[in-house]
């Protein structure tokens, strides 16, 4: 796991952020704040779903988390969400716990990068 993390590229795809910045500068901060507020809840909701093996719910949450992550250019995290969403649609939570662990780790990187972005905006 640790090895993989070190091989990872930047957590945020800057072109997605530029896409948002092109709208107005203030909206980026707003969207980041919404994302940073919602995401921990999403991750813990995923945790709950996996624990009770609720594949359907897991897929729904992963889908939503994917969409929000993709908007802010967190491509790696969005990919992980997609994988989890597919799992859920195939009605299994098998291996989801391991994936969630990776997602938590990736989210930490994304969170750090987004906070950095916020500071720049401010």
């Amino acid at each position: 796991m640790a090895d993989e993390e070190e091989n990872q590229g930047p957590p945020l795809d800057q072109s997605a952020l530029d896409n948002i910045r092109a709208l107005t500068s203030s909206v980026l901060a707003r969207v980041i704040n919404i994302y940073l507020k919602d995401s921990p809840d999403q991750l813990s909701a995923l945790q709950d779903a996996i624990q009770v093996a609720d594949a359907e719910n897991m897929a729904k949450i992963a889908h939503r988390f994917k969409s929000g992550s993709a908007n802010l250019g967190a491509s790696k995290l969005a990919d992980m969400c997609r994988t989890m969403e597919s799992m859920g649609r195939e009605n299994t939570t098998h291996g989801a716990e391991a994936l969630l662990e990776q997602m938590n780790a990736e989210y930490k990187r994304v969170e750090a990068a987004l906070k950095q972005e916020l500071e720049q905006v401010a």
Partner: protein
Amino acid sequence: VTDAVPGSNETTTILIVDDDESQRVLMREALAAAQYQIEEATSGEDALQNFAKMAPDLVLLDVDMPGIDGYQTLENLRRLPLGSQIPVVMVTGLDDGNSIDKAYQIGATDFITKPLNWTILRYRVRYLLRASRAFLQLQKSQVRLAAAQRLARLGYWEWTPGNDILDCSSEIYHIFGFEKSNRYQSFEKLRAAIHPGDYKMVKQAIEDAAQGGSSFAMDHRIILPSGEERVVHHQAAVTLDMQGHTIDITGAVQDITERKQTEAELRRAKEEIELANRLKTEFINNISHEVRTPMNGVLGMLSLLRETRLDKEQQEYLDTAYDSADVLMLLLNNLLDFSQLDTGKVIAEGSEFSPPLLLQELINDHLNAADSKTIRLDYSVASDVPQEVTGNLTQIRKILAILVDNAIKFTEQGAVLLCAKRSPSRSETIRFEISDTGKGISADAIPHIFEPFVQVDGSSTRQHGGMGMGLAICKQVADNMGYGIGVESALDEGSTFWLEIPCTVFSAGANNATVM
């Protein structure tokens, strides 16, 4: 650039349906520059429930939502009164072909995938709004056009020669009484509805248009499936290619049955009025004849009575009775003349007569009347007026007698002068003039002076006898004979009535007739 509807204060409302708050925030922000009114719904249920209230012009609809998903929302939305035509853009991260197919099949207008490019979204929305407005405008125009054509009972068709299929507007179906199936109609069926009596004419015109490229316009009858006969105006124009061959023919058919009926009714009404008028004249004619016979008896007997020995008092009564009977007879004769003129019974026959002699006779006939009012009555004949001319003496004398009679009647003092001369404008025309020193005729009365039952004013009617028919008779006789008649007059200066007759002249002493 705003996307408000030009010339209206209406705002354009966009409804964003997405459960993800950050997605809604971003979409709202992306569309903010265009000054749209943005409404948000957090679920499909929310969107459907509040749809009528928000009345959006465009919907951005997320596919994956908790509760009912985007597809189901769209299906329900299309069934709402305001939702059937509205552009709906489906937004999803599922970019596989199947879900795109599904979205279009259930009525999505367009489809965009996440992550969204906000600039593209903005232009996409703008384009779709314009397309949707243009589509609505087109629909409105079509509805208006159809309504106008319906009102005008005007249908059109397009035909490419060589096949049997006509592209018809819906009014064609109404006009021909066909049941509407679709806009394509068998040409043969249309032709079969043409009245057999007109079929050849229409068929020929269409063939000429198809082969020779000639346009046509005609009225013809058609027979509806119900058996009812109607009249249509049928017009067609031909589109030709560069070589002059017919590409297609466009035709317009208008139901003009009611117009034709109205025309026929008007014609019938006119004929009826003319008949009634003729009957009235004949009635007057007959009555006058019937009354004249006993009047002749009365007059005859009165003149016989004159020859008997009467005392002075009896003589006076007799004179009054005779004069009254005479006036009544004159009146009857006028009436009879007028009604005969009206039925066109006067026969124009020429005879030779002498203008000076005619004037002399007229003077003699009216001398008593003039003397009683101490009015001078005289005549003159210009030297270039021939001794003998041809013309209908009876009719000319009738006109001149009335004119002289009138002149004396309306003159209180002075003179009435008769004269004959060559017309100043046309030398082959003899002009008779009767001038008086009466009170004249006002300029606005002159145009009506020859109309029947008109006298110059009400007071004249009381002052002078007669029915106001004299000049009407003159005018009608003159018109029948092709003579010119008219008057020149000034108030308080007198009037000059004139009669112009074209005539063949017999020069004095010469036997050769010369047409002047």
